[in-house]
């Protein structure tokens, strides 16, 4: 019977335009975002960028040092006259240099800017060293590398950029998915209540069966949507180029899925209970606040800790079931906490799901047939034994 209800939820929801559009948008968004992430974080392994530098007569002496082979830029030098603006404005060169001033068309390209400054600095440096009587050999000795190794006690090897990206993607994905699917579930509950179809349903099946079927059906649909998103992420990353994805990133996918499943169970129950207290879709917006706020809080805590440290607040939030669905994937990707903490957090969340389902189920059962104005959540909770 539960499966009959679940199947109806899946079929009727999957048929709606909002669902199809949302899935497509999320998929496209994830592909685009992962392309953007790999572009931003994977620049080092690329071919040198082609640039053209216009040198005025006063800057001609730097032509050699600027065209010296390097990883970053493939430089073409154009000798220009004292004005040279037409070359710059015409787009023939990226920047003008006269030995003292860099002239840009607008906002400087920061990489190129740094490159030119360093090259010029280096040329001047060698020149001055020569003046002081140091030959190339002595200079080499002076600036020989002092190798410093890095060791991390947690055994991680990835860069922070990748970690931040993985942590943010996990948090944002969980946050959006929980909110969206919670809202879908709530809309379904309100729809059944406002259309009074719930009375016919309850004449055949119990409120518990109805709620379980709805949560299960939408949950399966949500999970498949999440898997589509993960596939989008993989496609997006492979589309661009081979960048070194640290193990930690793919390792966070199973954790993300587990957290989402448990978090969905927890929040679906809450959203259903909230939905059962209103009789009209118009009231649903305000009624869902008690469910949205803790999610938002968790998201805020995670977002505020990007690039920061594993503070006590983050630690606590990763254990409290109201915030852990959003904070745990973030903390795991960002701070690489000990495994036992992740397992403990998941266990607390898993343990709280049945409690939440029971409480929410009681509110749901009591409130379903009360039509009219919105029932305050606390009152609905106090009334739960009545039906």
């Amino acid at each position, binding site marked *: 019977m539960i499966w009959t209800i679940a199947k109806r939820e899946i079929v009727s929801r999957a048929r709606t335009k909002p669902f199809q559009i949302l899935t497509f948008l999320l998929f496209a968004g994830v592909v685009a975002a992962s392309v953007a992430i790999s572009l931003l974080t994977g620049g080092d392994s690329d071919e040198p960028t082609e640039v053209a530098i216009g040198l005025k007569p006063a800057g001609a002496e730097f032509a050699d040092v600027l065209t010296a082979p390097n990883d970053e830029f493939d430089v073409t030098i154009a000798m220009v006259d004292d004005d040279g603006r037409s070359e710059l404005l015409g787009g023939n060169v990226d920047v003008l240099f006269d030995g003292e001033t860099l002239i840009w068309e607008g906002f400087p390209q920061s990489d190129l800017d740094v490159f030119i400054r360093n090259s010029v600095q280096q040329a001047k440096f060698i020149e001055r060293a020569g003046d002081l009587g140091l030959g190339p050999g002595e200079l080499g000795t002076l600036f020989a590398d002092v190798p410093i190794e890095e060791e991390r006690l947690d055994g991680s090897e990835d860069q922070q950029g990748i970690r931040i990206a993985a942590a943010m993607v996990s948090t944002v994905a969980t946050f959006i998915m929980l909110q969206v699917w919670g809202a879908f579930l709530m809309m379904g509950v309100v*729809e059944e209540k406002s259309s009074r179809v719930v009375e016919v349903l309850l004449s055949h099946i119990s409120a518990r069966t109805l709620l379980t079927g709805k949560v299960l059906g939408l949950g399966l649909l949500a999970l498949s949507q999440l898997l589509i998103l993960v596939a989008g992420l993989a496609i997006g990353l492979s589309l661009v180029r081979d960048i070194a994805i640290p193990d930690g990133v793919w390792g966070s996918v199973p954790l993300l899925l587990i957290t989402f499943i448990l978090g969905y169970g927890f929040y679906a129950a809450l959203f259903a209970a909230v939905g059962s207290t209103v009789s009209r879709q118009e009231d649903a917006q305000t009624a869902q606040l008690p469910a949205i706020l803790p999610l938002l809080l968790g998201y805020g805590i995670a977002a505020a800790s990007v690039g920061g440290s594993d503070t006590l607040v983050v630690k606590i939030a990763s254990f409290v079931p109201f915030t852990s669905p959003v904070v745990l994937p973030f903390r795991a990707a960002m701070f690489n906490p000990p495994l036992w903490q992740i397992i403990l957090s998941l266990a607390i969340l898993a343990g709280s799901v049945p409690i939440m389902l029971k409480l929410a189920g009681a509110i749901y059962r009591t409130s379903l047939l009360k039509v009219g104005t919105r029932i305050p959540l606390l009152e609905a909770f106090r009334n739960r034994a009545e039906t």
Partner: protein
Amino acid sequence: MTGGLKVVGLKRSVGDLRAVDGVDLHVPPGELIGFLGSNGAGKTTTMRMILGIISADAGTITWNGKPIDADVRNDIGYMPQERGLYARMKVHEQVQYFGTLAGLEKGEAGEAADYWVERLGLEERRDDLVQELSGGNQQRVQLAVSLVHNPELLVLDEPFAGLDPIAADTMREIVRERAAEGAGVLLSSHQLNVVEGMCDRVIIVSHGREVAAGRPIDLRAAAPTRHMNVRWAEPVGHWQPLAGKLLEFDGTSASVELPALSDMSEQIAHAVAAGEVATLTVEPPSLAEVFADTVTAEHDIGHAEVDDSEQGGEEE
């Protein structure tokens, strides 16, 4: 007399209000029982308790001598007062879905849905969304939903409310047919005149209590008054009845309220003596009239304070 649905001493309070205060009901197989009373009399609450949608504070509800459980509930077809259907689900699909919820296999439910969709004249709309249907057609779908699993007991809450005369006829026909095939039918109405002709027995409730029960003809016969309507062939001038009250007189016709005497021949003879009689009827008052005082008084309360459909607290 243990077969069918039996309700004894059913009670349910809502806040300070005793919505149902000791109702007894018996719906034997094959009988059509009218559950009558004004809005707020406790009909919907009673029906919801029978369906197990809400629990009773006291009293017992049995089906063929056994308490009602989930299995039994699948033998009941319920049509709630506030119609309830999924607006964005197709007609046939919806009827079939409720069939499976009532325990039918998917194939069986599909065939049953085929039958009822055709029977109720919804063949051309079978793949339309319910929200695209007219109100009357949605009612037909609602009826199909309550019948799809071939229930042994029909519980219909205000089945005639909002129906046009043709749809009401179809409804009456199908309900009678189901009763003839052996199903027990409990149907509620606040319009006594609509259902008195079709019910084998009626139970009239007021403020959660039974005020009368029995065959409509017996309840009417028990009334202390009779109506006599006379029309003469020619104007008779001045005329007064022997007893009772002259309600209307226009020279050629009269409407009289008489006391319910065992022998009416003297009263009739008095009318015949006045002139040639074209038509003459002597009848007990209708059910609606018998209980007019109660119903009218309650009807006002019903609108002001307690309405089965609109007031939230009343239902729980």
